[in-house]
């Protein structure tokens, strides 16, 4: 079973979900929020953010710290109120609704488990609050623990659990009340690398299984690329770009996205009548509008063997090499473009530190960013 079979809506670009009759699990319209800083100034956390989920999407809010991603999440959960704008959950406006009445649940960064309660009472908390009867709660808690792989751990105390187990309890607790939308605030940042990768896969599988929307906040671009149906890249309180991981990686709309998501070589280009011209005089055909632009070359697009047809070439001295097992990462110092990064498949001749090599990139299908290079 692939996600394409079950949740085609999740992979549709924004705007085409109008065909689905179901209301969107989450819609944010022109959200604005600013804080007063201790120094007496104001800090704009959200500067006109609009976002709409197709049903059952896994959307990641990605950005550096202070970009507004956590504030955005907290306006959805109800812990922050907007200065202007609307939040709609499942089609109804919740902008003025306090947190405890909103049909969303959150997995907190440091889990925020109730230390004085057992695992079962933590997981059953929402149902206990809702006044459900004891047997129903017990059954649901059992199901939830089974779901997150902690079956039979009802009676444990929180302190007896490892970090990864606490993470799972937090997840089970947030899902127990069957929320319309699950919010996850950097939930994996406290786990070690192996466990984090395992949880990434499990979370993604869980989201498919449950068929509810996930809003996942992270500053880890790899995590975002691995898990998301769509990624919203945030900076300075605005969405820089939103789209599928491949779209964002291959065709970033601006320099910030290109730079933040993955490694990149950004070269200045002058476009005149259908041809892009690099500073060293090489040129290539492009449909881009005339003017100053930036050429994006991902490190893996460069290779030592020239491709068929027209190619761009970059000659320089190898300044650094890192061997990662599958690849050699190299830093190439070129006279015309400064330091360039390349990722070469291992297996070929080992690039030698200080030696001079030429790398090639096919001159077709190059992505230009409509911004002058930094």
């Amino acid at each position, binding site marked *: 079973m692939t996600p394409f079979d079950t949740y085609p809506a999740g992979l549709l670009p924004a705007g085409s979900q109008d065909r689905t009759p179901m209301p969107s699990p989450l819609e944010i319209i022109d959200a604005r929020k600013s804080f007063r800083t201790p120094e007496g100034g104001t800090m704009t956390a959200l500067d006109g953010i609009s976002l709409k989920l197709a049903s059952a999407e896994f959307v990641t809010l990605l950005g550096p710290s202070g970009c507004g991603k956590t504030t955005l999440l907290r306006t959805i959960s109800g812990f922050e109120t907007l200065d202007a704008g609307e939040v709609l959950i499942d089609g109804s406006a919740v902008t003025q609704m*306090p947190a*405890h009445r909103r049909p969303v649940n959150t997995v907190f*960064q440091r889990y925020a488990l*109730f230390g*004085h309660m057992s695992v079962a009472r933590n997981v059953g*908390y929402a149902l206990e609050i809702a006044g459900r009867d004891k047997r129903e709660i017990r059954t649901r808690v059992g199901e939830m623990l089974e779901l997150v792989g902690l079956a039979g751990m009802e009676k444990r105390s929180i*302190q007896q659990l490892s970090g990864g187990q606490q993470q799972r309890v937090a997840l089970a607790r947030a899902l127990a*009340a069957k929320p319309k939308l699950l919010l996850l605030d950097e939930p994996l940042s406290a786990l070690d690398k192996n466990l984090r990768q395992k949880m990434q896969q499990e979370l993604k599988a869980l989201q498919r299984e449950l068929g509810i929307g996930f809003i996942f906040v992270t500053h880890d671009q790899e995590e975002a690329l691995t898990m998301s149906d769509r990624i919203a890249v945030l900076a300075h309180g605005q969405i820089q770009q939103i789209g599928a991981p491949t779209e964002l990686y291959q065709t970033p709309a601006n320099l910030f996205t290109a730079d933040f998501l993955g490694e990149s070589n950004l070269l200045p280009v002058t476009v005149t009548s259908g041809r892009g011209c690099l500073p060293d005089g090489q040129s290539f055909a492009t449909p881009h509008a005339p003017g100053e632009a930036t050429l994006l070359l991902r490190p893996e697009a460069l290779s030592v063997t020239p491709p068929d047809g027209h190619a761009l070439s970059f000659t320089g001295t190898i300044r650094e090499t890192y061997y990662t097992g599958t690849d050699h990462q190299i830093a190439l110092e070129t006279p015309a473009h400064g330091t360039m990064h390349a990722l070469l498949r291992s297996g070929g001749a080992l690039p030698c530190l200080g030696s001079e090599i030429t790398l090639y990139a096919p001159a077709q299908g190059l992505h230009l960013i409509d911004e002058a290079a930094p």
Partner: protein
Amino acid sequence: MILRRLLSLYGLLFFVFVYAPILLVVIYSFNANTLNMMIWDGFTLDWYRQLFGMETSLTQSATFVDSTDQLWGAVRTSLIVALSTSVFSTVCGTALALAVARYRFRLARFYRTLMMVPMIMPDIVLGIALLIFFITIGMNLSMLTIIIGQSTFLISYVFVTVSARLAEVDTSVEEASADLGATPAQTFRKVTLPGIAPGILGGWLLAFIISMDDLVITYFIAGTGNTTLPIHIWGLLRRGIKPEINAIATLMLLFTLVIAAAGLYFRSRRQK
């Protein structure tokens, strides 16, 4: 090596200095010598028997009073005062600590500092101030004035104890509770209160012990006819030190230790 020995010796001397006088009081309380309690004259429980009004072999001249009614009256007054004051201070101190810790309002830090002041205020100043205050507003000195007066500074102790605990309780736990559908009242009852309960209990016990023990401030605002235990003992001492006092002191010590131990016990149970 020598330095370590010296340090150990210093540590030992320190504890001797602190605890020897207290230990002596306990030992003297079992001394049968009626005339000079510094000289050991055999073991006896007579001083305790005397306090509880039982038959003893003691002569009249050896004791302070022929009846211990006054003593037990003072104990009763002290217990009533300590219980009322500590409960009142705990409720007010906890509420204040919650307000200062959880709500953002102007001058919050100023109020926090203001709450510390009664603890460093000289007892005599506070005693005089309270006395003048009660007289000015025309309130007769009674058990009520003791309770009000002691509460003014005991609230601070509870405030500090509960605040320390509150600082440890992660606010995200309260947010998690709200997120899972709990109203602010439910969150307070099910999450916040259990979280700070050890602090509240600790603050309450502290307030209780300090109230039982307070002499200076209470002395100013007690008036006549409301003798607390410390005031009663002070009164006894003015007629010379008699061995009976050792028994009273030992019982008070025991009482305080039991309460402190109970506090520590509950605290460790909560933190497990």
